[in-house]
């Protein structure tokens, strides 16, 4: 069974007097973005609900969300800064600090943990010489431990930079993934099908792309002892 102790149990206090990272003149929405914001706001009965959209837009714009970016989103929607901050910190997908080029979100929630999620996490930590939450010196990789990403069927798994999932992880697969990423190749999107409809739609359950690699019911993970 996986090692269950919490390695570094200190939950940090966020910087209470943070230095501003983004200069004031960049803390504005372009006209195009304004338009998108209005669109998003119109989607909800309460425009404040668009905070998640806005935070996402800000993250795409600034690469991460320093406090002033969160405040910009809150001010845009006329909502409490604290509330927007609470939303931003709830989701690991919002990056509150600068991350590496590739963020490896390893799931260690129940199913992945049972299937060796911690082994994968610790293997990554050792291989890259960093602890979870840290970034390698070359700025290439950040390793994160995250909660359930909703892909228990192919545990253990990880997500790369809020993008494609990598399923059914083994140490070999991790090695290969790191090599690919170093070459700048993101892993392909793999469509997860249920066994009973692997034949339907050619196994491709995404209608917005022509084809994806299709997840096959895997052999037993090596990580299971």
């Amino acid at each position: 069974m996986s090692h269950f102790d919490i390695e570094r149990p200190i939950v940090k206090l966020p910087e209470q007097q943070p230095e501003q990272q983004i200069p004031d003149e960049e803390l504005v929405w372009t006209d195009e973005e304004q338009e998108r914001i209005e669109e998003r706001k119109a989607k909800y009965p309460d425009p404040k609900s668009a905070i998640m959209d806005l935070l996402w837009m800000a993250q795409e714009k600034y690469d991460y969300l320093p406090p002033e970016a969160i405040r910009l989103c809150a001010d845009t929607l006329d909502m409490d800064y604290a509330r927007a901050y609470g939303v931003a910190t709830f989701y690991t997908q919002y990056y509150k600090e600068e991350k590496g080029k590739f963020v490896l979100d390893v799931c260690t929630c129940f199913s992945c943990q049972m299937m060796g999620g911690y082994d994968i996490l610790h293997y990554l930590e050792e291989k890259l010489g960093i602890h979870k939450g840290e970034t390698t010196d070359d700025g290439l990789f950040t390793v994160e431990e995250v909660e359930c990403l909703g892909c228990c069927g192919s545990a253990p798994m990880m997500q790369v930079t809020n993008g494609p999932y990598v399923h059914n992880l083994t140490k070999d697969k991790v090695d290969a993934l790191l090599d690919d990423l170093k070459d700048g190749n993101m892993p392909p999107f793999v469509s997860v099908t249920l066994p009973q409809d692997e034949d339907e739609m050619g196994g491709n359950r995404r209608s917005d792309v022509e084809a994806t690699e299709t997840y096959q019911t895997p052999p037993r993970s090596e990580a299971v002892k």
Partner: protein
Amino acid sequence: MPTVEIDGQVYTYDDDRHDKLLQFCLDHDIELPHFCYHPSMSIPANCRQCLVQVGTPERDRATGELVTDEEGNPNIQFMPGMQTSCTIGLQDGMVVKTHRTSDAVREAQKDTLEFLLINHPLDCPICDQAGHCPLQIQAYKYGPEGSRFEFRKVHKPKRVKLGPRVTLDAERCINCTRCTRFTDEISESGQLTINNRGVRNYPITAPGEDFDEAYSMNTIDLCPVGALTASDFRFKARIWEMSSSPSIVTTNATGANCEYWVRDNKVLRITPRQNMEVNEYWLPDEDRLVYDRFNDDRPEGPQVRSNGQLVNANWTQAYAKAAALLGPVDGDRIQFVGSAYATVEDNYLLTQLAEHLGADTPVYMPHIEPGAGDDWLITDDKTPNAQGCERLGIREADMQMLRTRIQNGEIDVLYVLEDDPVASELCALADLEDVDVILHYYNTTNETLPAVDVALPAAMVVETVGTYVNQDGRAQRVRPAKAIQGVNRTLMMEMGTSREDEHGTPFDRWHNESHRINCKPSWEILPQIADRVGLDLDYAKGPQAIMNEVQSALDAFEGATYDAMGLQGVALEDAEAGEPA
């Protein structure tokens, strides 16, 4: 009337009130453990502590008829899982099983508590909340005897200064969200949020922000654990070392209800007391942080001026001196100044004395700070009893005119009840050189003292018995929270007896001689002086008898007897002020 059965007992309820089960139980003295629920805020049902089993009578789907067994009893269908009683609305025929009748409920509540305690530090021996901590109390009553959690606990930030007045210990937090709901829904400052998720979450302000709203300390009372503590009161006293006395705060005209917490005759903190007609459950920070003035800079007995110097005297000498100043002077050359800080009783006695000496009806000095109020519990008026004065016929002083009269030498004796004419800018010290001043005062910081001829230390709100009328015309009693020097039977009898051992009396094992101030309530001082100028103001039962007379003599106070006011006060009718009944 619809009925609901709880633990085998049938209760009727009012359908229009849309009561939730938990509130209904609490109203009927059926205790259910809970942490996150608060009657004034939204119900998130996130502590999962108030679990009960709930069943409803089965109805035939086609006909809507009740399904009954052979004996004609309705067939009760219990919901498959435990329900949070805080969110369940009452329903006719509902059957509820609490921990009193159901082992399953007992187990569920125990398991929830075990979860809540998994990452709780159990530092009760050094925690300010210990002794009145819902988590501690309910863990004793409903919790498991020990923990099965053998792993290291999650450690979170401690000693975080959330703002100038509130300190956070995130490890103790059980994430009930009462504090964030308070800032969202009640004070609407929106300054707090829950940060992070899962086992790592705790309440915090946004980066760079202070939790500095005017009502921030209410979150300390709301917090069901010791996560939010008062920065000023941290580690000062254990809850069981203090007595608490129900009273009201006197920092403004709201008359918010409060408890004064006292140890060794020092007021250490002030907390709100529920009164739905006045302050509900809340108390602004400025009302809580004024206790220093009850402890510090207090006078040491009366003083009289002799050969140009204020010298210590005993009370008899002070009374005699005051009487000697008042006696020979023509009534219209004496100015009596009442006080919106003093009780109705004291002001009433002052009007009696003024009338006897043929002086004008007393006036009071207003203390208004325009713009200080917030239309909630903070008012522009910084005095507790302006309304009480008005109802006695004591009018706001025309400061300009009074100043001119003093400067023109039209006044020989200025008698001031519990106020500070110099600090209030009624006149300068120099103006009072040729005026004999008799002053009842609270603190040695009183700026009028250098010009005073008789200085009489008066008991403050925490040391006296009396009545205040708030801006809405609600008459409320105050009770002594701490002892002063000398034995006054009335004060002794009014001292809080909330504890079985009668705190505050000499028979109390917490009774303490230290820090007792040598002062007297004005309702004791005034009759003594009156007696020496030929007026009998002997009220055998003290302020209670005075208030009885006031409420029967004056329309504006009708019904405000001590019994009627009790702990929640009495709303007075609007009546022509000062008019006799």
